[in-house]
């Protein structure tokens, strides 16, 4: 049966809804507070979005494959603690330690998920607990402020390149790499196939378990990188440094139009989603929404944004 023409065109429009939403939101905030549209503000907005975007990118890989990673905020915090504890002695190698911890944590959740068949929701939630404990123990339950000498190692995060803050450059590099992985590598293709139809992917000879582990490793790596960036920006490390970032990250992925059930989505969409989340968050302060009411607006915008952006023609049943 031929698809009705009207629906096809509507689907084509759907694809652009996240961007349209983003532009509309920026215009809306700009209309209330023209200062919001100034280049410095927008640059600041982009810098503030970087950490969220990097976290969300990692979790995009996992959501695409049909899972979820709830350990990212604990991982990011742990990474910040590792950096804060080791940077004075080991210099740049501290960042490598932090990233290695992310890779290891992702691998362990992956193994727990596929070998022990624990749902990713639970495996990563539990791994989050383990990582949080590790951060608490390592930091002796306190926040570690970086000394001036230690901050010199952070200039690659805190500095600027031709007027563009380095965090934005880092985020763009992450975007390029993640987008390539997602759209051009076998892993990217396999993960979309697994998310959209695991039995068929499996029967076609895709090594499903391996892809799931890779997805969680990528997520752990991104989370660790986000923690490293955060430690640089805040000049400290603490076991709760990245708390409050988990839900916005997942929200960013879904608001961008990636299906929470997997199979449909992209890193680009996550970038747009992360920007939407940031614009709403920062825009509320700009517009002067009461601090205590901000969560209400945020929750409502979240629901509306998802209602507008998700492409239901590619999702079998909305659960």
């Amino acid at each position: 049966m031929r698809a009705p023409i009207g629906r096809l065109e509507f689907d084509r429009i759907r694809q652009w809804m996240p961007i349209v939403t983003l532009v509309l939101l920026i215009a809306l905030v700009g209309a209330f507070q023209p200062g919001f549209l100034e280049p410095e503000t927008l640059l600041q907005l982009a810098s503030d979005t970087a950490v969220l975007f990097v976290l969300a990118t990692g979790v995009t890989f996992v959501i695409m494959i049909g899972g979820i990673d709830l350990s990212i905020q604990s991982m990011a915090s742990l990474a910040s603690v590792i950096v804060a504890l080791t940077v004075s002695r080991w210099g740049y190698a501290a960042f490598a330690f932090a990233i290695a911890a992310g890779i290891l944590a992702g691998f362990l959740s992956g193994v727990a998920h596929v070998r022990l068949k624990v749902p990713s929701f639970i495996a990563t939630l539990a791994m989050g607990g383990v990582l949080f404990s590790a951060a608490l123990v390592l930091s002796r339950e306190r926040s570690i402020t970086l000394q001036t000498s230690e901050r010199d190692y952070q200039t690659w995060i805190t500095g600027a390149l031709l007027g563009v803050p380095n965090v934005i450059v880092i985020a763009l590099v992450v975007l390029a790499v993640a987008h390539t992985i997602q759209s051009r590598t076998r892993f990217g293709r396999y993960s979309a196939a697994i998310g959209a139809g695991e039995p068929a992917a499996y029967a076609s000879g895709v090594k499903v378990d391996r892809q799931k582990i890779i997805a969680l490793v990528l997520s752990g790596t991104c989370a660790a990188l986000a923690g490293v960036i955060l430690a640089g920006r805040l000049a400290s490390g603490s076991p709760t440094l990245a708390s409050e970032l988990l839900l916005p990250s997942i929200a960013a992925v879904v608001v961008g139009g990636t299906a929470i059930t997997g199979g449909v989505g992209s890193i680009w969409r996550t970038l747009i989603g992360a920007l939407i989340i940031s614009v709403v968050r920062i825009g509320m302060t700009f517009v002067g929404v009461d601090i205590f009411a901000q969560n209400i607006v945020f929750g409502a915008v979240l629901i509306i944004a998802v209602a507008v952006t998700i492409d239901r023609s590619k999702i079998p049943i909305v659960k």
Partner: protein
Amino acid sequence: MTTQALGADKKARSARWALRRRFAAWAPVAVLALLCVIIALINPNFLSAGNFVRIAQAAMIPLVLGLGATFVILMGSIDLSVEGVLSLSAVILSLLVLNGANSNDFGPLAILPVLLVGAAVGFVNGVVHVGLKTPSFMTTLGTWFIGVGVANALLGGTAVRINDPFIRGLAIERFLGLPWGVWLALACLAVAFVIQNNTRLGRYVYALGGGEELAALSGIPVARVRVLTFTLAGVFYAIGGILAAAQLGLGNSLIGNGRLFSTITAVVVGGTALSGGEGSVLQTLVGVLIVAVLNNGMVLADVPPSYQIGVQGLMIIAAVALSIDRNVMRIVK
């Protein structure tokens, strides 16, 4: 002859199935028993009556929350609004009963509007999810923020002391050795059990979890069942909010912190599948007890506090890994 052969094969198959099902349902119970034995060996105080009361007190709120979440999960959806509803109901309750912030004193009557608020949030969850076709994950994530936000806006970030003797009594006064709150939680369990097993709603929740399209073909009002189930869950969370307010003797918007994930953990540890259609409220009771006993055991075994959440994580992976029936679930997400 052929018919007989087929029949024999059929019988053998269903017998195998029944056995496997029974094993799957009892595995979490075995895990719980094992856990109890281990902890009792480490510290015999575990078996004291006072400790049982402590476990019961620790389990009552997770149980009530878990009952609501179980229905939603059985249906194949997820509900993240637990903390939002819980904070909101605790705050509203604290403002309606005898308290330290205003002159209200509605006593036990205040419970009714609180339950209605819980039902209303659940209803909104359901209506938005069904009406706007937004995934339940995101819909309820939104109402989570909204619930906490409203609670925050009501109190402006402060906490309200509850002076009402009836509400405080839920946590303090005892009947047959257990606080009234525990009895209330058990009553909720009984109600949930009856809804699950003896009402059409209960059956339809399983039907939706087993296959929504097929359920619709059988004439089941899918949208109504979804909305009702979220509403029901909202009521359970509101009761959880009342118990939390009673236990802490105050209402504030942070009262729900950390309760969502522990709720879902308990449901899954009990053996209810996140994919829907498999599980029960009794299994949630077992799951809640596993988590409560585990936490209790860590205290009894003198595990340092900063290690506890990590140990809990590892034990939960072990518990789920031990109790998942791999033959039934090939795809684990």
